[in-house]
């Protein structure tokens, strides 16, 4: 599957490296965990990374198009607040609620795309601005944390499958396969990558640049809504400020996963690994013997090492002009 989800990763091994690092960290975490490896521990581990992983997937798609989405946290919060009103009741109501929430995410994403494309505004600032607007709406939808979300869905999505696999991870992969895989293999996905690689060339080649960008942001909005839903399943409630720490972390996840912020090439799977790495670093402090006041420094340092890994590519460069790629 890696091949499908790697969109022209310049060096496929960056995503692979991310998965190796993740594997190492996870093994270490399970090793120091007093309970050791058990499905409960694994599910808790997977659950805390899933919301970020969804965002990282969405962020990657935008980054592939050479954009960036700083409204991803606010969309997550807004959809989470909506979910806390809508995702309740009988099966039909649940389905309707989820559909509305995902649609809301798609609409927010599409608005981002439209602002970027037709407002001719640079993505960072456009999504910073729309992000403020979505945060405002989240506050209107739910002025303070509260509401409720169907518990059965919660158990279904945050538990495990037959005691073997954390259901959150399975759901993550299934949704990625449903919503991104077909796109990545169709003209639209290629256009997104082409635009990210060289917008002018894509335009000159007669690709529909505008449509590709709007699609990328819309997909990002959709994945943000999955994230908002999932955090809702985890917390059974809505919170207008829940997205705050997520936006920048989603970008960090993308970079750690081996996708260049300069667009055009990257790996969705790598980003998922990136998100899980970030959260596993956080988990390590649970059972290391670190003094509490040293914990943030420890987390920062591990992150530093993970990020500095990226610099090793310099060692392989023999033509200084390639440094700038």
């Amino acid at each position, binding site marked *: 599957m890696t091949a499908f989800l790697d969109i022209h990763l310049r060096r496929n091994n960056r995503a692979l490296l991310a998965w190796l690092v993740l594997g190492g960290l996870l093994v270490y975490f399970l090793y120091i965990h007093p309970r050791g490896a058990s499905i409960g521990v694994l599910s808790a581990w997977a659950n805390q990374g899933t919301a970020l992983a969804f965002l990282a997937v969405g962020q990657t798609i935008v980054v592939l198009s050479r954009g960036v989405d700083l409204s991803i946290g606010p969309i997550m919060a807004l959809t989470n607040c909506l979910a806390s009103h809508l995702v309740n009741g009988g099966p039909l109501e649940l389905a309707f609620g989820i559909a509305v929430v995902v649609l809301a995410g798609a609409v927010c994403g599409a608005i981002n795309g439209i602002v970027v494309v037709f407002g001719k505004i640079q993505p960072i600032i456009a999504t910073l601005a729309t992000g403020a607007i979505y945060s405002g709406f989240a506050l209107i939808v739910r002025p303070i944390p509260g509401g409720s979300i169907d518990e059965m869905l919660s158990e279904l999505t945050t538990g495990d499958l037959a005691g073997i696999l954390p259901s959150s991870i399975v759901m993550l992969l299934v949704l990625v396969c449903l919503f991104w895989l077909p796109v990545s293999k169709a003209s639209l996905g290629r256009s997104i990558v082409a635009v990210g690689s060289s917008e002018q060339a894509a335009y000159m080649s007669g690709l529909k640049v505008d449509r590709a960008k709007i699609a990328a942001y819309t997909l990002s909005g959709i994945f943000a809504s999955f994230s908002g839903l999932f*955090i809702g399943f*985890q*917390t059974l409630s809505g919170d207008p400020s*829940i997205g705050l*720490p997520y936006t920048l*972390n989603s970008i960090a996840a993308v970079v750690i996963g081996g996708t260049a912020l300069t667009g055009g090439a990257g790996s969705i799977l790598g980003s998922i690994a990136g998100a899980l790495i970030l959260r596993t670093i956080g988990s390590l402090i649970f*059972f290391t013997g670190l003094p*509490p*006041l040293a914990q*943030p420094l420890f987390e920062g340092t591990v992150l530093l090492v993970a990020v500095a890994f990226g610099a090793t590519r310099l060692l392989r460069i023999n033509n200084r002009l390639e440094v700038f790629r």
Partner: protein
Amino acid sequence: GTFMPECYKPGLGDTGTIKHAKKEGPYRVALVNGHTGIPWREQMIKSVKVWAAAPENAKNITELKVVSTGSDVAAQIAAIDNFIQAGYDAIAFIAVNPTAFDAVIKRAKQAGTVLVSFDNPVDNPSVLRITPEWIEFEGIIKAQSVVNQMKEPKGKILEIRGIQGNSTDRDRHLGVQKVLAKYPDIEVVEVVGNWDTGTVQKVTADAIAVHGFFDAIICQHGCRGVTNAIKATGHPPVPVGGDAENGFVKALAMNDIPGISVSTSPGQGPVAVRAAIALLQGGEFPALVNVPTPYVETKDMKPNVNYFPDEPDTLETVTGYAVCGADMVFTPAQLNAQSADNN
């Protein structure tokens, strides 16, 4: 009867009591903090460690694990889940969000882990919640005292609120409204200071520039900004209600600004951890505990009691809860000496 009722008072709207099956000690206890990089929280962690290090408390604890997960609610839930999985006997935590923990509370119950939620408590009646009564805190104590210290109960009051969308801010605001509703001649101007000194200072100065004069000012947190703005704009000293950070209390006391410092002490940390241990030992608690709200008005402020000229301005001056026992009050020296070298 319930455990130490003079300290663990039943809270407003209390819904019965909480008791767990007795377990043999000593215990493995975890403390899960949310936000990092806030002095109150750091002092809280230090207080817990000072308390737990005292021999009479240490004998009940085989292991005390303290973690701060930051503001990501998923990380905090995972931390609690992991301590449950790892078989810890009790977990005390400050929730980053009051409504997010119902699912994990259920899992704790299934596993037989004792949960104690404090400071920013969860909205779940099945766990022991220890918190100030925010409506009383901000209203009956702070707002009332400010009104009482006004020349007459009329005119304009500036209310400086905290971060919007946060339930504590909402509760505190309700408290203020409740008290001021009784005074039809008082007009309230509301601004948002985000609990941040610099922001509070700017919005206060701006409000003064536009409104000219306030008869009193009520501030939630970051209130040193209010006294700074009063000084900078040459606003006459009027009653100010605020927090208990050393800088603010000093500013009231040393400049004779009438007012009141009201606080929730970081001593809530050890109060909560002690409750967790008492629960394990079979103690009974009101399901919702309101810790007393310490306060001091300007006229009663004394150096090295209510404020500490030689300590940093961000020190929380109320270092513990005297009603909760002699071991629940910490000196700045004790806190500073608390090194961070074991877990």
